[in-house]
């Protein structure tokens, strides 16, 4: 096994909730990311999925050091970047870049495309042998835009083109790793595939490593080699893509997968009926449940789930491949993935709320 390009251990980010203006008192914390372990190998794509508010965006900002971690370690390319100063981080930023979610707010409306894509050279003070303008135009061509767009402004482009501009900016410094935070979720579905394919092509061409953060399971399935599922600040399951999609082990993953829209109208009604509907809302990250965080909505929860937090590990089951890890006391069995098992799971999931009342 090769050495990991990015290694995250026990990473935490707690946003303090304070009261008072001059005399600030800390009255609590939002535990956005609460102890996660991740490893990304060179050349692979790790997809990070979860519903909104589960901490996946915060994770992306932590590994690119846009925000300061509360605890844990981030090791990039053998160097510990957990708490390096902004000044020491600057040269390393050439190697880890970010693609942002919103193509409308991630490009400065007052700058031309040339200024935006050329900003990395200017900020990092890099001399380009062929001249900055030429370098920018080559980047524009790389992402499928015309070099003539150099003098244009972001508002003259469509969402998909803007996202291409954002990608060109991220690639300007030839990074080893790109963290893509919801790279396509703000785009029309018809444009999503193009941008996803562009990311795929660029990976092959430039040998990039991706950490793709998304909530759309179909996008993640298309682009990822491995997938990590997050729930309320924790990673609940990590697996090679096909294992995760065909044999989910965590009840939450199973529920998520059952909620993926089916594009085929003939099968849509059946899919609708097979959906496992989770009862209730995601608990507050200010005061997460004890033990397993999913237990409040889980139909398989038992006493031990409230007392003991399940570790993220490979369960000793026959069908489970190496590298498939899950944080659950009672992983999903093959039986539950059959039609009848799923039916029972649905009924049990729907009954979770009633038992509480």
């Amino acid at each position, binding site marked *: 096994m090769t050495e990991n390009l990015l290694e995250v251990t026990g990473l935490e980010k707690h946003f303090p909730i304070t009261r008072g203006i001059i005399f600030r008192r800390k009255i609590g914390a939002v535990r956005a990311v609460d102890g996660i372990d991740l490893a990304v190998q060179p050349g692979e794509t790790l997809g990070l999925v979860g519903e909104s508010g589960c901490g996946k965006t915060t994770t992306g900002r932590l590994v690119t050091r846009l925000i300061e971690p509360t605890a844990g370690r981030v090791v990039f390319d053998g160097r510990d970047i957990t708490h390096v100063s*902004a000044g020491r981080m600057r040269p390393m930023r050439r190697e880890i870049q970010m693609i*942002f979610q919103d193509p409308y707010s*991630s*490009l400065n409306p*007052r700058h031309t495309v040339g200024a935006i894509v050329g900003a990395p050279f200017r*900020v990092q003070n890099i001399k380009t042998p062929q001249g900055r303008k030429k370098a920018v135009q080559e980047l524009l061509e790389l992402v499928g835009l*015309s070099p003539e767009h150099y003098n244009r402004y972001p508002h*003259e*482009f469509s969402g998909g083109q803007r996202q291409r501009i954002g990608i060109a*900016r991220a690639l300007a410094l030839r990074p080893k790793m790109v963290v893509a935070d919801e790279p396509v979720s703000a785009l029309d579905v018809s444009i999503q595939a193009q941008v996803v394919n562009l990311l795929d092509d660029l990976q092959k061409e430039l040998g990039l490593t991706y950490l793709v953060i998304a909530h759309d399971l179909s996008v993640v399935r298309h682009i990822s080699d491995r997938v990590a599922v997050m729930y309320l600040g924790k990673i609940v399951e990590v697996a090679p893509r096909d294992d995760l999609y065909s044999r989910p082990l965590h009840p939450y993953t199973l529920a998520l997968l059952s909620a993926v829209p089916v594009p085929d109208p003939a099968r849509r009604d059946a899919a609708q009926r097979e959906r496992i509907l989770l009862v209730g809302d995601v608990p507050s990250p200010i005061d997460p449940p004890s033990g397993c965080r999913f237990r409040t909505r889980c139909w398989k929860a038992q006493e031990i789930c409230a007392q003991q937090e399940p570790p993220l590990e490979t369960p000793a089951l026959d069908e489970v491949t190496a590298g498939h890890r899950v944080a659950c006391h009672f992983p999903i069995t093959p039986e539950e993935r059959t039609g009848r098992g799923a039916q029972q799971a649905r009924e049990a999931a729907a009954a979770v709320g009633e038992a509480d009342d």
Partner: protein
Amino acid sequence: MVIGPEPVAGDTTTLVAEETTAPPGAAKAIEGRSLWRIAWIRLKRDKIALAGGVVVIFLILGAVFAPFIVALLGHPPNEFHQNLIDINLGTPIGKFGGISKDFLFGLEPGSGRDLFSRIVYGSRISLLIAFLATAMSMVIGTVMGVISGYFGGWIDAFIGRLMDVFLAFPLLLFSLALVGVIPDRAFGLSGVSLRIAMLVFIIGFFSWPYIGRIIRGQTLSLREREFVDAARSLGARGPYIVVRELLPNLVAPILIYTTLLIPTNILFEAALSFLGVGIPAPTASWGAMLTEASHGLYQVDPFYMIFPGLAIFVTVLAFNLFGDGLRDALDPRAR
């Protein structure tokens, strides 16, 4: 709309740009239409704002070239023409305050000075003080607003309270008191220039919170935009982010509120002059003329009050109309 060669894979581009397009065949260098260009196109369509702008330019030119205009159309502003004044009444001879082709706005009662020249010269004082004071409050307001919004936390809280103090300051009383204690010469200035400096200071130093608050709010919302994060993820330092990323987006609000603050300051200067805190005689000033007229003269010669009043009214209206139009052009979402 065709944008020259279009090699983009299948990204069927519906450009967001507006209706006007480069003529067909202009496929060489595609020049981007900056937001300024678009704002200008929008402003050109707003006839009322354009009219305001024309009046503003006209007023500025009038103030700058006052000596030439007066030499051409009037008499020196401090030249007495008592032969044209009714000795018994003290009012100008002739109808409508003595309006004639020699004296376009008539004469000043008592002394017989040319009212037109005094209005033209008065515009110099009004505009000079308003411009300098506005520039001062704009600079202080922008710096304080950006600091407040960008850094946040206790700095924001402190500057916020400071603005409250400045806004709560009894400014009129303060300036009345200041005139009582101001020496004849200070800071190497004396007479009219010292008074101008004082007025600029009073008006400028106490009106910055209006701009400061707006800039703070804008900075606060800009700071959260992803392009700031993008700059940081490239390794940009604070000054780079403020100067290259934030300020270009703040120019529009700064420009808008500057144009809207100028008429307020013109009014304020007139008010101070009216209260006798302004420019000392014999220098012409709109506010001071209104004071004199208000001492009973308007009953016998209403035109002595109408012309300075009209001058203030037209100036303030023109700046306001232009400023409103500018806001609509630069920031169409503001309404």
